């Protein structure tokens, strides 16, 4: 089995985002770029599956749609343990554009399981994985919190409102993963970092694809009113304020 892990390159999760060009563009200065948190967990799980010989996983490839400036993030994925990488050399213009490029990668390279994160922490779209599955006409399972391969079958736990379901799906399949898929993201060891330098990154030129959406501008959240402090000896007053001032009790 060959696994493809799709990774997005996002600002570090502690970044205080700022915008330029009249709030139309992210101010990228000083931003630390990282593998999208869910993609990091997804990669971790893929590598765990590969480590277990009984799963029959032969290789884990990462794919990214982005310019050359994203290569440090791809190298990091290789250092964590991916065997090789594919980069589609284009600005990730919108979710449909990205999914279309990834679909082409899957068609030419033939993967059995494609893993995507439930959302990327920049655009919060929750869309690329699902779009990819429809473009390929593959089955998809979303909200995946546990993934095993048993006797050549993909066994998944998916979250439903108020519970979970265990489902079986045939390959090829797109799985969209979330919390629970792996405990902690795997960290690159020194040896991995050394090895990553020589692992191949295949660069592909993009297909011509029209975008379906476009960001017209950004806004910052409304500043919140200052905190009112209540004496620790008198929480009754808090309950009173919640009831009569905020009117939420």
């Amino acid at each position: 089995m060959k696994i493809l892990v799709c990774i997005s390159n996002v600002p570090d999760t502690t970044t205080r985002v700022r915008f330029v060009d009249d709030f139309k563009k992210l101010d990228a200065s000083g931003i630390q770029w990282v593998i999208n948190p869910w993609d990091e967990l997804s990669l971790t799980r893929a590598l765990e599956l590969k480590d277990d010989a009984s799963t029959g996983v032969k290789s884990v490839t990462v794919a990214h749609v982005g310019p050359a400036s994203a290569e440090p993030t791809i190298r990091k994925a290789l250092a964590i343990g991916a065997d090789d990488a594919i980069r589609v050399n284009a600005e990730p213009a919108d979710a449909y554009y990205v999914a279309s490029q990834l679909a082409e990668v899957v068609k030419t390279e033939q993967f059995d399981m494609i893993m995507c994160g439930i959302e990327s922490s920049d655009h919060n779209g929750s869309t690329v994985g699902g779009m990819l599955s429809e473009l390929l006409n593959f089955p998809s399972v979303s909200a995946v919190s546990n993934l095993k391969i048993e006797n050549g079958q993909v066994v998944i736990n998916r979250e439903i409102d108020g519970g979970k379901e265990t489902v079986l799906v045939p390959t090829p399949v797109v799985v969209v993963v979330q919390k629970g898929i792996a405990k902690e993201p795997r960290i690159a060891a020194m040896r991995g970092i050394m090895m990553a330098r020589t692992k191949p990154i295949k660069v592909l030129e993009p297909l011509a694809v029209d975008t379906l959406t476009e960001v017209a501008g950004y806004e910052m959240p409304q500043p919140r009113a200052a905190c009112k402090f209540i004496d620790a000896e008198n929480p009754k007053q808090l309950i009173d304020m919640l009831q009569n001032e905020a009117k939420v009790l």
Partner: protein
Amino acid sequence: MAVLVYTENWDGKFKKLSFELASYASKVAEMLNTNSVALSIGKTEAGELEKLGNYGVNKIINAQGEGLDKLDNQVFTKVIADFARKEGATVILLANNNTGKALAPRLSVNLKAGIGSGVSKLPLSTSPFVVYKRAYSGNAFAKLQIKTDIRIITLAQNSFELIEKNASASIENETVQVDKSMVKTHVQEVQKQSGKVLLTDADIVVSGGRGMKSPDNWAPLVELADLLGAATACSRPVSDEGWRGHEEHTGQTGKIIAPNLYFAIGISGATQHLAGVSSSKYIVAVNTDKDAPVFEAAQYGIVGDAQKVLPKLVEAVKEIKSK
């Protein structure tokens, strides 16, 4: 033209989220001068479909058929896309929950429709069609233009006020033939927690962090939640360490919620935690450290030890409940 809203049911019933969707759909239909149509798939209890009419949808399609009792993304996508074509829908609305996130992007490709997900307001304009959505994990909002003739929106839960119309809608029964070979997702087992307020549905949430010190200290927090009819939640380290279940983890990598009231007890207020709760209408923080960042996000705060404050909060709530 029409606005089509997919209203999922849970064991045959609708809930507040369904009515938020119906309200939103009827408002968007008004903006576009057209009708709103709710699509229900699978069995619902008697009297449930009618409830949707109260929130302004003009018509309800009740689609029934074998193979529609469990979610298969390909099957459901086809059913919704077929009805969208039949109704000439130019806007298709789903919830931004597990099901909506699974189906909306497939529909987007199927109908060549741009998608705005996690939308928290009515469209800012309909020509061009611009929606307002969460971006950078709650640190910003994006005005997203959807350039296609058909648009898909997923609505953030608890972000849109219900609009009751006391109207009624026509119900059309439709039988759907599902090609069995198309069903690829085989559900082996379903595990449900019963009797608990769902975190994503809750109006009030009481959440504990590492400042709770030990899993043995949770009793007064749970008691407070029970008294308030609230759901319980926790920060990531608390669920990572197994003090509480993963389903309670809120934040960037956990659940994103927007209750009316969120109690952050012994939670420092890291950006990644706030990313999941910053849409709460009110945040109350209890923390021993007066400089904890959580107080910047909170409207009400108590500087104090959770183990001392919680029992007093429980007493105070009991008092107002007994009145």
